[in-house]
């Protein structure tokens, strides 16, 4: 068992600041998704002359905002797990699997957009 779980230090749970770097990585991803969705919101309904595509952009922005909050909740769970003694308090892969599914949907939707614009 890693000694990290028995640590009782003040300050950051990990002197290498890995939990902080991980939170920032989540935030970068959230920003990329939100900005991409805002641009899609601006461009796609016009390009395809179909206002329904606004919903796709709005969904993307909502997902990006949710991801921003997931960054913080995961960070809290990680640092709690590192200071405590129960490793199963660490966050698992559920949110990662959801992101995988969502991103695949975005890829498929974008392919539909491009084929509609070209056709």
């Amino acid at each position, binding site marked *: 068992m890693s000694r990290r779980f028995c640590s009782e230090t003040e300050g950051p749970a990990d002197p290498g600041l890995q939990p902080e770097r991980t939170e920032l990585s989540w935030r970068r991803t959230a920003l990329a998704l939100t900005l991409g969705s805002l641009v899609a919101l601006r461009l796609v309904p016009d390009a395809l002359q179909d206002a329904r595509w606004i919903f796709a952009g709005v969904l993307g922005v909502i997902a990006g905002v949710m991801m921003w909050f997931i960054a913080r909740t995961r960070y809290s769970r990680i640092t709690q797990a590192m200071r405590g003694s*129960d490793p199963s308090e660490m966050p698992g892969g559920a949110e990662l699997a959801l992101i995988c*599914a969502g991103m*695949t949907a975005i*890829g498929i939707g974008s392919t539909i957009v491009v084929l509609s614009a070209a056709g």
Partner: protein
Amino acid sequence: MTVTRDRRFPASLYRQGQEPDVRFTLANERTFLAWIRTTLAIIAAGVALELLGPTMHPTLRISASLVLLLTGVMLPAFAWIGWTRTERALRLGQPLPSSPIGLILGLAVIVSGALIVAAILLGD
């Protein structure tokens, strides 16, 4: 001694081996997120090429766009599989797995780039 039941997903992964150093798990997580950002970028490139690109040969342009987009559709699955395989290797103390994902991405960019150059040279 009480043992808390591990409720993390996927259960089949967390049943195996033992808890790795947290730093390695977090590095694995950041790698997954980096691949997700790469997916966003490649999808954005595919869409921008078709919606915003300058005048170029239409069939070659849509082909370049589709190469990027189909790669973007595949990347999240590779990211997830890479994450689970790496996490399993960490838990079991095994060598980290390799993945063809980098090669696939590189080839997609090369092929798409070549199609774009051809599309520009051939014109409308």
